[in-house]
């Protein structure tokens, strides 16, 4: 059974339609790159998966229809979201951010600190006082504390210094190799995506236009649909 299935997914913001038919399927432990130019519906697809906006079409996690569920129940089913823009709880400390999200499972304060040692060092520091990169690590750590089956990283390295980006990509590779967690990645770095992803799905104008193994993604296709 697929972990995540999207078939003909459509969604709108008021009267403005954003998704016109997104198809995507992911197996357990698979890393999928969701690609496309700006404004093509990648983040909207993520919002639809997490039930932050209403959508139509098939939307299933482990066979269960997600349409009738509120956002928090989708998370409880095992979807961990790292939203665009490093959205931590600024008034809480690093430790408190992690505890607030914690659910029983393999991911604990210690395992998160092992993945991101900087978070362990700054456990008592308020999230608002962290650097952008550290806040991003915290957002990932917080999503991991929910012990998800599927981790969604929406532009996790956007606007970060190259060294921090490397740290985050290294953590993503570690997650793939050591935990076998399914990961849905949205990022602009084609090079990094191709190194870590098993498959790629490309959106254009809110619709899936290409989906295959990452190894099948040729420079022509990426130049045509992604622009790089």
């Amino acid at each position, binding site marked *: 059974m697929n972990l995540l299935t999207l078939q003909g997914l459509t969604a709108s913001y008021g009267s403005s339609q954003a998704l016109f038919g997104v198809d995507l399927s992911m197996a357990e432990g698979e890393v999928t790159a969701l690609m496309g130019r700006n404004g093509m519906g990648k983040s909207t697809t993520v919002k639809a998966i997490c039930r932050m906006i209403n959508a139509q079409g098939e939307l299933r996690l482990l066979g269960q229809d997600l349409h009738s569920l509120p956002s928090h129940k989708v998370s409880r089913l095992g979807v*961990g979201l790292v939203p665009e823009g490093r959205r931590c709880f600024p008034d809480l400390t690093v430790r408190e951010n992690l505890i*607030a999200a914690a659910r029983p499972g393999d991911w604990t304060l210690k395992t998160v600190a092992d993945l991101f040692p900087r978070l362990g060092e700054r456990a008592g520091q308020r999230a608002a006082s962290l650097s952008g990169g550290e806040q991003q690590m915290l957002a990932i750590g917080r999503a991991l504390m929910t012990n998800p089956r599927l981790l969604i990283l929406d532009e996790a390295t956007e606007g970060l210094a190259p060294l921090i980006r490397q740290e985050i990509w290294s953590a993503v590779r570690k997650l793939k190799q050591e935990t076998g967690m399914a990961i849905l990645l949205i990022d602009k770095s084609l090079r990094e995506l191709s190194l870590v992803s098993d498959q790629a799905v490309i959106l254009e104008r809110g619709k899936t236009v290409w989906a295959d193994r990452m190894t099948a993604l040729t420079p022509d296709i990426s130049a045509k649909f992604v622009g790089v």
Partner: protein
Amino acid sequence: MKLNERAINTVVLLGLLALPLYALVVDEPFTITLVTRAVILALAAVGLNIVLGIGGLVSFGHALFFGIGGYAMGILAYHAQTYTTLNLGFFSTGGTKLMPVIWLVAMTVSAIVAYVIGKLTLRTSGVYFIMITLAFAQMFYYFTISWAQYGGEDGLSIYIRNDFPGLNTLVPIQFFAICFVILCSVLFLYARLQASPFGLALNATRQSATRVEAVGLDPMKLKLLAFVISGAVTGLAGALFADLNRFVSPTMFSWQLSGELIVLIIIGGVGRLMGPVIGACVFVALEHFLGGLTSFWHIYLGVILLCIVLFARGGILGLLTGKEGAHV
């Protein structure tokens, strides 16, 4: 000079304990009653601080729970002292004068009412939440005004203070001891709750409900549970307040009292453990000392509140510790 918040908290609690003991030695029972009043108001404000300070919910109707606690005490004691039966249809009782039973009833009824009101109001936010909570409190206020059976507008006098096993509650210092122990217990629970995963999630809800949902928590449930706990604590304070005065009246539901509870918290420091306690002490001191000089003492309270809002956003505790936020 910036002071340590824990040290300030300890000094305030010790001061609150020492003052009545000193008053006992110099035979000033009124001072003991005054401090007891501050302790009870602090307890009510600690209850409100759970939703206001941690959850960021500005409930402008918390006097509702204070009044429910007061009337729970008043009604039970009234039936006990008049040897009449309180018939609720499904249950009848001759009332009681036993404090622990009265507290339990006050907290339970307050919690149930908080649950129902919370279910209806917590879907709103901002000014709508403020107005709806105010409206509920006013409904109870006008209901009790017309509730002739229990004194109506004139209120209900209780001729004897209720009993606590092993203590003579008519002795001011013994009644103070009961209230002080309850306040310390509730402060301990508040501190534990604030640092617990529930408290942290509630705090996170104040910052962003959407992000809280994204980590699998239901903001509505978090806020509702906090509202229920908060209502129960404020209800307990109401029962003690009614016992202190041996009198309950519709003013316990008044919007002025709801506003005063918010003012106490703002003066002391929103979301801080001892903020409501410091606020209550300042409030009762002003009420006593300035109230003796002029009946317009609220003007001075207003000036203090204005200064705190403009120049000390963290309240008195924030000013002393140099930390505006509630994080210690």
